[in-house]
């Protein structure tokens, strides 16, 4: 992937994309389609496609708020579109195509140097909002970015995020996805690193349905790249969270790691489909993937499908998935110290998730 030479080029690249070809060929979300197979997705996803198609060409409805002391963030608010921004997805090409057809709003970050203060971007909507975030880190850049999505009422947040990190860059990115109970969300995240370190944490709460597709790619030059993906979510009621990930290693001597954790209550459903792909020639790769779920009800549903495709040699890879009720001994330990049952349950469940959040922060701090 080529990095723009200047902020201006990059901003051009941010504008609306010609996605007609993709739209014409992309499948509609359907259970028969591999990437949409699990957890009754079509009801929400098909409705989303319909909604996007019906409103194509109308402005995106939502607000963008940026807090950035460094001044390296621009608000995107453009109606003219002429450049292409190619992204791949894991199943939602059609949604992405429709997303990109709508008038662009969002934020474009071009980060140079080491920022001391975090950049905070907030997207808010109570209808249909399709913001795009572009984060480009120049060689050696360092930054912490917090992106908040707030969706009210029956609103729907459909966000695409592209992250490109050049040699020696270090990015720590947090996504806080907050819904209303009846809202929906769709996130398409593309991260690429060339000898750079990127940590990404996503936290979802309270959407009726949310899907997240994350592609993390280690590109070009051998060595030193390190991408870590974390997620920690709590689902209740009839909520559905559908997360798909792909860790792609095209250059060797690099590492990627993934830890996704969910606490699932009531009738809620958590879906995880992950894949590690190590290209032929990407030798000495370290790639790990772990999906862990705590089930707090017998009616809760988990679909967990970790996967590996290794075409290189000297590769250390592992993938795993574990879903279990709350550990009785942990609960008993808290009760035995006088903590009442309800609070003990909350502490252990939150602790299970905090564990992933802590790992995100400790890896971000240590390096």
């Amino acid at each position, binding site marked *: 992937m080529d990095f723009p030479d200047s902020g201006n080029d990059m901003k051009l690249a941010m504008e609306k994309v010609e996605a007609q070809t993709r739209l014409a060929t992309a499948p509609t979300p359907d259970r028969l389609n591999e990437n949409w197979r699990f957890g009754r997705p079509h009801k929400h996803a098909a409705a989303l496609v319909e909604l996007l198609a019906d409103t194509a060409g109308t402005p995106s409805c939502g607000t963008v708020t940026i807090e950035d002391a460094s001044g390296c963030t621009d608000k995107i608010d453009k109606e003219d579109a002429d450049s292409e921004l190619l992204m791949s997805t894991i199943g939602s090409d059609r949604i992405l195509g429709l997303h990109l057809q709508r008038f662009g709003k969002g934020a474009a970050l071009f980060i140079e140097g080491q920022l001391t203060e975090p950049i905070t971007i907030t997207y808010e909507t109570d209808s249909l909002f399709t913001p795009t975030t572009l984060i480009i880190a120049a060689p050696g850049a360092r930054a912490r970015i917090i992106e908040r999505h707030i969706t009210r009422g029956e609103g729907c947040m459909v966000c695409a995020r592209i992250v490109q990190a050049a040699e020696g860059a270090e990015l720590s990115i947090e996504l806080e996805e907050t819904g209303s109970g009846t809202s929906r969300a769709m996130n398409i995240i593309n991260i690429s690193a060339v000898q750079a370190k990127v940590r990404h944490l996503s936290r979802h709460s309270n959407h009726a349905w949310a899907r997240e597709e994350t592609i993390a790619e280690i590109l070009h030059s051998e060595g030193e790249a390190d991408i870590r993906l974390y997620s920690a979510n709590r689902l209740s009621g009839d909520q559905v969270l559908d997360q798909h990930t792909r860790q792609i290693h095209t250059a060797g001597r690099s590492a990627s790691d993934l830890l996704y954790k969910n606490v699932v209550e009531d009738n809620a459903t958590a879906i995880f489909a992950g894949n590690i792909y190590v290209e032929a020639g990407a030798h000495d790769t370290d790639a790990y993937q772990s999906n862990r779920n705590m089930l707090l009800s017998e009616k809760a549903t988990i679909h967990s499908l970790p996967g590996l495709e290794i075409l290189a040699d000297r590769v250390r890879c592992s993938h795993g998935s574990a879903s279990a009720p709350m550990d009785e001994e942990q609960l008993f330990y808290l009760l035995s110290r006088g*903590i009442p049952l309800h609070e003990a349950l909350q502490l252990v469940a939150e602790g299970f998730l905090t564990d992933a959040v802590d790992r995100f922060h400790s890896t971000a701090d240590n390096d």
Partner: protein
Amino acid sequence: MSLIIRDLHARVKDGADILNGINLEIPKGEVHAIMGPNGSGKSTLSKVLCGHPAYEITAGSVEMDGQNLLAMSVDERSRAGLFLAFQYPVEVPGVTNANFLRAALEARLPKGEEINVVDFYKQLRGRMKSLGMDTKFTSRAVNEGFSGGEKKRNDVLQMMMLDPTYAILDETDSGLDVDALRIVSDGVNAMRAPFRSFMVITHYKRLLDYIRPDVVHVLYKGRLVRTGGFELVDYIEEHGFDFVRNEEE
């Protein structure tokens, strides 16, 4: 006032009988040692007293300061003054030591009241220092990645913070080196008081040399088969538990 155990029988749920009629009274102010070979039921007795869900009481009763202990929930027993320092303290990922202790202390206050955070940390750090613990442990997840000895100290720290009236120490000495053993014993001795009692479970004399018990019991196959003074400790140190095995079989 005392802890009175009468003819207590318990088994693993749908499994084997483990406690086969325990009779024991621990008056306030006394330290009772429980010794016995591996598998005799010492940990089971301590967990049954706390209400561990793996066990089922098949007969008997337990009275704590006149209250029916067995009718109380696990957390109620703790708030009523019972404490167990576990043989194998559990790791609780993501819950920091400080938050854990705060929740336990706040559960003892009237509803809606909160502890004074400044006093809490002051007390916590003071007690950690007295136990030779690094105060950084306040922000670490409960017991996670702690060494065996660190876990034991952490349970003793909890005991100090929660200030129980009946404290059970289950093999707290195992995993502690000589220096740590002295530090922990000093901490326990400092807590000895006329209003508090201890049940100290151990295999070894070395702990009881530091924490001198008033009464010593030997548990064997789920029954207390001997009760005596410190001479029993000396005898076991020299001869092991074969004498009970031989006499009981």
